[in-house]
């Protein structure tokens, strides 16, 4: 065995560059894989840990304020809850902080502890008087509100001022950039903050069960509560599955992307390794013969070849695994922070060993299969050959190139590209994966941007005005209409609709005005045009067993509401459990309601800042005027960044693959190159020949990879849409122009040609006498 190690070490010293190629590609692949595995194994744990530690509610139900306390007290027994919190008296308050106004569901609660929904104080102390309020840390950070800040309540006539005394983490609501937020005060403070309007007071109860209930069990609990309480008692309900999904969706998407691409990276690495070992075997025929002649057993010959690949791979794993674990920490820290957990850097030895094992097995297998060929060669045969014979592969390409009268160095180069079909195929795999990933990295962020633009009505409305409860809708309409820059106003409000087959009440977005111009993306059907027509995202249609054209016998405000689905809309709110309807539909069940939010489209060229200042100045206490925030939400930015990194990694691996193949080709063909130089090929022509080889491989790889990348983009986009409860709208797919795809292709070829320059220069500098004399 010592001879095997001695020979392996000698070969490693001799093939330093090839060892470096293996080291770098395995490092990149294992680093990405480790990142994916770490996220995969850790991403669910923070939420689960926090949910258990804070005794999260499996079910939160909001009851009408008129519901009796006795009835509420009976609800835990009705559904068999093991513990409960509440009833907490609640109302929605609007407050002003600086120039901004906010609306929060505020709960009366005298302490942060209890059997369900423990609130973890991260800063400050629990309110001790009626003028103190607690906010979520997520909301405070998003809106730059600090402990000690004073908030002026504008939803009641008295305009009381509250002091922020605590920031908490609530495991039973999503982060502030994705979900509406809660606030807490002493129970005794809530009545004075409740506006004297119908349905402004409600109760909230939290329920926890001995076992985590399923979706259908949760729906069953709601049905039982409805049956056991007077009609209209339940305003809305919320379950832990939705919140968990909201927390996990970013990590899920990230993990999916990383897992998919780390499989790509490992696949490309395996192709490069197999290519490399095949190349070494091919060029070492005589050496193999000598090894066998002096007594190396076949398995020892195989071991020599495998060890010289596995050794740099092992070194790469030892660097790549910790590097991948470290790179995943910011994402885990982000997740922990959102949940209010103390972030502690985590590294699982088991996951590390799994990554190490997977990488070494894959690399070992990729190396062993071609190395077996070396082990099986007959000494007498190989001793008489310097290297494995080459067939006539590539002659048809040369013929083709000759037909179009390309210069001879290019003709020879394109022929060489496929002189060894297996090597070419393995190289094409690496190129294919690299170019496809780059295509996805270009396409997916653009698709996200398109979806974001539709969700935020980017370009279709510029200003959002929110009125306080006490300020009449008619006045807002008049003020906005009086501004010369106002082009169009779409007013909206939200309500809850009970849809048969759906356990929780469904949030409905109700529009007044021409909402079809807001830019929402349609997956199927059309925008609503007559009373009763609604649109919904896929998740709601799927869960309620509906399709476009179906009727819904819904209930809203305790009244029956006949609806008909006329379209499927893309909307990620509540993971696809939303309804879009016109005001004319809503007034059938709530004739006294008025919208509270106004989307204002300005005339082209209007000064948005001047417009906002002027409108806000009309009623500074009652109107909140803000620009339409069309920026990407943080999770999408993270996904875009990770995609970019992954694309760079895969592109580097692909370049490594091309470089490796050209290196093997150049070394293997060193005698041919010397012969060509002897018969008059100039150094520049040698360079052109090698570059033509690389260019053709990249061109073919790119031609296959570009459409593959577009398809992959669709698949990933569909997976992301599905995670968010939607089908992908056709418009989100079309993110590439033919010219861009051509540019990707040309860039791929250009990068391959640049990668060919080093082996090309080596070939061009071949010393004819040295090489031919060595024969």
């Amino acid at each position: 065995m010592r001879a095997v190690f001695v020979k392996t070490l000698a070969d490693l010293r001799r093939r330093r560059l090839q060892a470096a190629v293996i080291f770098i590609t395995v490092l990149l692949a294992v680093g990405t894989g480790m990142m994916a595995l770490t996220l995969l194994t850790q991403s669910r744990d923070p939420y689960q840990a926090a949910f258990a530690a804070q005794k999260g509610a499996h079910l939160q139900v909001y009851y009408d304020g008129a519901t009796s306390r006795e009835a509420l007290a009976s609800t835990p027994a009705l559904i068999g809850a093991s513990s409960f919190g509440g009833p907490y008296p609640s109302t929605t308050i609007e407050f002003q902080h600086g120039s901004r106004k906010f609306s929060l569901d505020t709960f009366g609660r005298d302490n942060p502890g209890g059997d369900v929904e423990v609130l973890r104080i991260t800063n400050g102390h629990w309110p001790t008087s009626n003028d103190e309020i607690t906010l979520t840390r997520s909301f405070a950070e998003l809106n730059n509100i600090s402990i000690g800040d004073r908030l002026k309540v504008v939803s009641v006539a008295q305009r009381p001022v509250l002091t922020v005394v605590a920031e908490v983490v609530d495991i039973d609501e999503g982060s502030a950039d994705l979900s509406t937020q809660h606030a807490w005060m002493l129970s005794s403070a809530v009545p004075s903050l409740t506006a004297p309007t119908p349905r402004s007071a409600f109760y909230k109860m939290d329920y926890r069960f001995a076992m985590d209930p399923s979706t259908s069990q949760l729906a069953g609990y709601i049905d039982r509560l409805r049956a056991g309480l007077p009609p209209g008692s339940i305003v809305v309900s919320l379950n832990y599955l939705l919140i968990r999904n909201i927390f996990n969706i970013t990590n899920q998407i990230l993990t999916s992307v990383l897992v998919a691409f780390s499989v790509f990276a490992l696949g490309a690495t395996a192709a490069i390794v197999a290519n490399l070992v095949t190349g070494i075997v091919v060029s070492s025929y005589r050496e193999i013969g000598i090894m066998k002649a002096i007594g190396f057993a076949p398995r020892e010959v195989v071991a020599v070849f495998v060890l010289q690949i596995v050794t740099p791979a092992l070194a790469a794993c030892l660097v790549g695994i910790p590097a991948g674990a470290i790179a995943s920490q910011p994402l885990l820290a982000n997740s922990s922070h959102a949940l209010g957990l103390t972030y502690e850097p985590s590294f699982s030895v088991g996951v590390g060993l799994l990554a190490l094992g997977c990488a070494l097995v894959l690399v070992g297998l990729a190396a062993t299969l071609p190395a077996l060929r070396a082990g099986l060669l007959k000494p007498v045969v190989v001793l008489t050959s310097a290297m494995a014979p080459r067939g006539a592969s590539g002659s048809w390409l040369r013929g083709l190139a000759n037909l179009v009268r390309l210069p001879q160095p290019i003709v020879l180069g394109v022929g060489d590209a496929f002189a060894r079909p297996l090597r070419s195929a393995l190289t094409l795999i690496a190129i294919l994966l690299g170019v496809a990933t780059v295509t996805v990295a270009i396409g997916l962020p653009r698709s996200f941007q398109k979806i974001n633009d539709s969700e935020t009505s980017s370009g279709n409305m510029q200003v959002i005005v929110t009125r306080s409860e006490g300020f009449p809708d008619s006045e807002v309409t008049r003020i906005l209409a009086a501004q010369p820059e106002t082009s169009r106003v779409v007013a909206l409000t939200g309500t809850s609709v009970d849809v048969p087959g759906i356990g929780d009440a469904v949030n409905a977005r109700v529009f007044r005005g021409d909402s079809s111009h807001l830019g929402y993306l349609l997956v199927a059907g059309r925008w609503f045009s007559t009373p009763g027509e609604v649109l919904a995202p896929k998740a709601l249609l799927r869960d309620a067993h509906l399709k476009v054209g179906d009727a819904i016998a819904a209930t809203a405000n305790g009244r029956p509401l006949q609806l008909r689905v006329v379209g499927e809309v893309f909307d990620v709110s509540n993971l696809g459990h939303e309804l879009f309807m016109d005001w004319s539909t809503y007034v059938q069940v709530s004739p006294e309601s008025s919208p509270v939010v106004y989307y204002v489209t300005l005339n082209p060229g209007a000064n948005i800042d001047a417009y906002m200042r002027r409108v806000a100045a009309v009623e500074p206490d009652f109107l909140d005027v803000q620009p339409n925030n069309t920026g990407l939400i943080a999770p999408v930015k993270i996904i875009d960044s990770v995609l970019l990194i992954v694309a760079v990694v895969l592109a580097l691996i692909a370049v490594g693959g091309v470089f490796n193949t050209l290196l093997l080709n150049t070394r293997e063909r060193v005698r041919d190159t010397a012969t060509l130089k002897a018969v008059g090929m100039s150094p520049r022509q040698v360079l052109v020949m090698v570059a033509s080889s690389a260019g053709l491989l990249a061109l073919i790889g790119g031609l296959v990879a570009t459409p593959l990348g577009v398809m992959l983009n669709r698949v990933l986009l569909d997976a992301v849409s599905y995670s968010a409860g939607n089908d992908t709208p056709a418009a989100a797919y079309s993110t590439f122009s033919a010219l861009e795809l051509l540019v990707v292709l040309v860039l791929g070829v250009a990068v391959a040609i640049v990668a060919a320059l080093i082996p090309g220069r080596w070939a061009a500098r071949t010393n004819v006498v040295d090489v031919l004399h060595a024969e």
Partner: protein
Amino acid sequence: MSELVRLSDVTKVYQGGVTGALSGVSLAIEQGEFTAIMGPSGSGKSTLLNLIAGLDRPSSGSVVVGGTDLGRLGEAGLARFRRDRVGFVFQFFHLLPNLTALENVLIPAQLKSRASAEAGGRRLLSQLGIDDVADRYPAKLSGGQQQRVAIARALINQPDLLLADEPTGALDTKSGEHVMTLLAQLHEQGQTIVLVTHDAKLATRYAARVISIIDGSVVDDARLETAERRPADVIRVRGEETAR
């Protein structure tokens, strides 16, 4: 006859060693001559041929071929020189294994120009008696056939000078004789040929001039058609070398 090749005080020292070195070699070769360079292994005869072919550069001295001082040419210039002015026949043929016989022959012509040289290539193969193997790959050819393909490749650009380094060294006797007969026929047609060989019989049988090299120095330069030297003298010199 005019002078085609002139070496003036040419020295070649390889890095880190002296094997194959030349020391102060000066000689001239006339156009139309069939010259054999003889010497034992490591004497420097192949080095001399490589320098004339522009495959290598001397450590000192000058090599002028057809009026061109090779020392003044860059890599690209040397490549053009090899392509246009000389043809080289190697001991081990050095055909490109993934090209057919005809494709191998055409390579130098195609490197020179895009104009089709296929007719010329086929004519050469026919002249050399191997037109029937034009579309075969080298692995399917006998050694003699491969060497004839190599000769055709060397001739495709009608070079001023044909250089052959042990062209029969890898062939059996019959094939070797066939190749040498071909070279003799080419010489009769006016082709200047420089042949490197260690086989004195071969050298004296076909070449009109035999230059003997030992340890990098020219020790003998015999023009066999003159009365002053006879083949036996050259063979004697060879015998002396062997005895050293």
